[in-house]
């Protein structure tokens, strides 16, 4: 176990070196984030699991996605009375970008989907429904049974 502890320290140093060179890239480039996420998944690591993890602390990946989570929740709550808790991924992206302001970093559809997947843990009904070529985001815990889902997909 102590061997692991030592290895962790070495890894942490490497991660810090990486971060000092490329931290900006993560915040700036959706393509880089996507590649990063894929590689983490390939080796069985979840960089978003905890705010106390190395990835979040050193690279700052966490803050980006957790803040996005808050923005997504706020947008969904604000529009719930209009759309009943169902919103297309595109509209969500537009609204979130609008809320982030002119100088904020770009947010890709993949970023949104990952943030929403994490929000599911909070148990308040966030769901992603594939429709046509894109997705609907559900923010209320109504169970959509098979009939509802089929109708939604046909309405595309």
């Amino acid at each position, binding site marked *: 176990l102590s061997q692991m502890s030592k290895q962790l320290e070495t890894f942490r140093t490497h991660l810090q070196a990486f971060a000092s060179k490329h931290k900006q890239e993560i915040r700036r480039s959706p393509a880089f984030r996507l*590649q990063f996420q894929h590689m983490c998944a390939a080796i069985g690591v979840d960089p978003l699991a905890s705010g106390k*993890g190395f990835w979040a602390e050193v690279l700052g990946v966490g803050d980006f996605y957790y803040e996005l989570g808050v923005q997504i*929740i706020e947008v969904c709550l604000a529009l719930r009375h209009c759309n009943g808790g169902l919103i297309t991924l595109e509209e969500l992206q537009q609204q979130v970008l609008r809320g982030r302001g002119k100088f904020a970093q770009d947010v890709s559809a993949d970023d949104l989907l990952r943030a929403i997947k994490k929000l599911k843990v909070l148990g308040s009904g966030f769901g992603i429904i594939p429709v046509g070529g894109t997705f609907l985001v559900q923010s209320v815990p109504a169970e959509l049974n098979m009939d509802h889902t089929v109708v939604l997909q046909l309405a595309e």
Partner: protein
Amino acid sequence: MDRFSWTTGLLELGETLVVQQRGVRLSDGEEKVKFDSGVLLLSTHRLIWRDQKNHECCIAVPLSQIVFIEEQAAGIGKSAKIVVHLHPASSNKEPGPFQSSKYSYVKLSFKEHGQIEFYRRLSEEITQRRWESMPTGQAMQVNKDSQAGRIRAVGIVGIERKLEEKRKETDKNISEAFEDLSKLMEKAKEMVELSKSIANKIKEKQGDITEDETIRFKSYLLSMGIANPVTRETYGSGTQYHMQLAKQLAGILQTPLEERGGIMSLTEVYCLVNRARGLELLSPEDLVNACKMLESLNLPLRLRIFDSGVMVIELQSHNEEEMVAAALETVSEKGSLTADEFAKLVGMSVLLAKERLLLAEKMGHLCRDDSVEGLRFYPNLFLTQS
């Protein structure tokens, strides 16, 4: 503006759409023209503008004609703009709306936002120059144009050279970043292998390993972001960090909970806490793990999971069952209520209102009327008036 040609707006074979934006005005340099309100489409080969009212009116310019682009931020009463500097038109260009123009640039005004994304995509397309590798049905005059351009306007050559250098540097940065990323991932992989072997040893020697060591191991796994299936059964997913977090939460949430009638959904808590923190935000999993430990640490809050899966935090003093009795009275007064109406009356969120009504139903106090119009609750007369 004389670089544009009339077009059908249909994409050629080999040409793909990259992004589009509504509500864009096209101006010839500083002068407004009749292209006031349209959809701007960016493809791998061209920039196309189609009138929103008259779809027949559609013009385009090849991306190869673009020298460089600039952003103009929005001002008071003015929308954000992109300024597109163009090479002079080639002699064999298709006919367009203007024969001549005194400007060598056009302005795109984004009246309905979308300028940031569009600028980014346009820069990407100009850098990648995908039209060179994907020949389309039209004859591409790429090289000829840039030659003619270089001979005529010397100043533009310098700008082009700078663009080229910038592009090379960005490419270099990105490929360096990816290389470093791959190396980092190799090391991370070693860590994962090591943790797996340790986890296996723990499973074999079940009971032989001390609680202290298990806790240390769990915190290592947490740092790396590796799921720990083995230890989860024995001691739960919590760690020291989560215990401290739970104590912090109890402090932060006391007042907001009292303001909201003693109960808050976990999504509200997540937003509240993270907004207050500003930096070093909590992940949803951190929050859930910390809340799971609230009760065992004898803190004045607790996590409650309803049958539907909805998770809330409530004050220990809050008794949902008493609330149900109050809810029953409210419903009886009004005859019947839906979750929305109840939420409005009592002043709580619709989600929690629904949960309370469902709980009342489970306890036998209310009956449901589930129709196309929605879900409505009535007092359970079967029970009271037998």
